[in-house]
């Protein structure tokens, strides 16, 4: 099987997972006053979960441009680390132009799956991006159009989809690696601290997540350096 097809296949479960998460996004966007096409355009051009959920809240209040940039930057700074991490595995033919084009598709899940490759080729990565992008777009469209007909219970249940997917990415690695268990525990403890402790809880959500992640991964790297 060629690399593109292999990537395409590997992307299908991500695409399906994205359907439910972006469905929730479509519902939320429309219920807070966006039109269906605006929700779809946001998903097509931004392709991110946490950033979009936070972004539409910011968009409701006019003129918060700096706030938008700062919150997006802090929520999404993790992608920079993923890009750097992925850059270490790219095949030699993965040159600048392909990086400008395909870099758009770096998401948590696409990164997680691509990381399991020994060498990431252009065709594999391109194939991998197809199903998630269509899933994200179609899910948003369906949520935006059908959201209002769904009962509250269904919407409540769908809100957990994204977190279910996160848990599914983390747990297999926790089984394989003790350092990752420690990193996860530190990250969770810090994130709880930023949610409940006065003073800390005034820090905005996106920035708090980046601080927690950088601290946890930093402690992990200091305590458990990976083998050469």
């Amino acid at each position, binding site marked *: 099987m060629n690399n593109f097809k292999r990537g395409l296949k590997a992307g299908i479960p*991500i695409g399906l997972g994205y359907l*439910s998460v972006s469905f929730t996004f479509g519902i939320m966007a429309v219920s807070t006053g*966006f039109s269906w096409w*605006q929700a779809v355009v*946001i998903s097509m*051009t*931004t*392709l991110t979960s946490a*950033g979009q959920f936070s972004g539409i809240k910011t*968009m*409701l209040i*006019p003129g918060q441009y700096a706030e*938008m940039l700062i919150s*997006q930057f802090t929520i*999404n700074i993790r992608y*920079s*680390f993923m*890009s750097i991490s992925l850059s*270490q595995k790219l095949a030699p033919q993965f040159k600048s132009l392909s*990086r*400008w084009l395909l*870099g*758009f598709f770096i998401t*948590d899940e696409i990164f997680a799956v691509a990381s399991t490759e020994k060498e990431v080729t252009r065709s594999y990565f391109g194939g991998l991006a197809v199903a998630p992008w269509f899933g994200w777009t179609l899910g948003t469209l369906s949520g935006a159009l059908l959201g209002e007909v769904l009962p509250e*219970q*269904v919407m*409540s*249940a769908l*809100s*957990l*989809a*994204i*977190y*279910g*997917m*996160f*848990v*599914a*990415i*983390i747990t297999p690695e*926790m*089984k394989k690696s003790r350092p990752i268990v420690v*990193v*996860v525990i*530190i*990250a969770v403890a810090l*994130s*709880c601290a930023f*949610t409940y402790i006065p003073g800390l809880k005034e820090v905005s959500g996106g920035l*708090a*997540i*980046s601080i927690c*992640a950088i601290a946890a*991964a930093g402690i*992990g*790297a200091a305590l*458990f*350096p*990976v083998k*050469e």
Partner: protein
Amino acid sequence: MDNTEFWIYLLLMAGSTYLVRVIPFVLVKKKIENRFIKSFLTYIPYAVLAAMTIPSALFATRYVWSAAIGLLVALILGLKGKSLTVVAVAACAAVFLAELIPMAF
């Protein structure tokens, strides 16, 4: 929100998200040799996902306890190595079923 406002916001959101992803992707062409940075890059995805999930996920559904049940189901299936899709769908189903219970009384 008027249309102009929407497009300005979209440009800021989509543009900044794109640049945050693509700039390091284009600039970093050499192999990183520093062991600390290599280790940090290995751990960062899990640290991010963990911090994003807990405690936020507990407030995602209508009740904290139904979210907790959903997360528990996700954790068990995740440990069993089920695919992303299966775990996500099962977590949603668990929340849905759990929220039916109070209605039975």
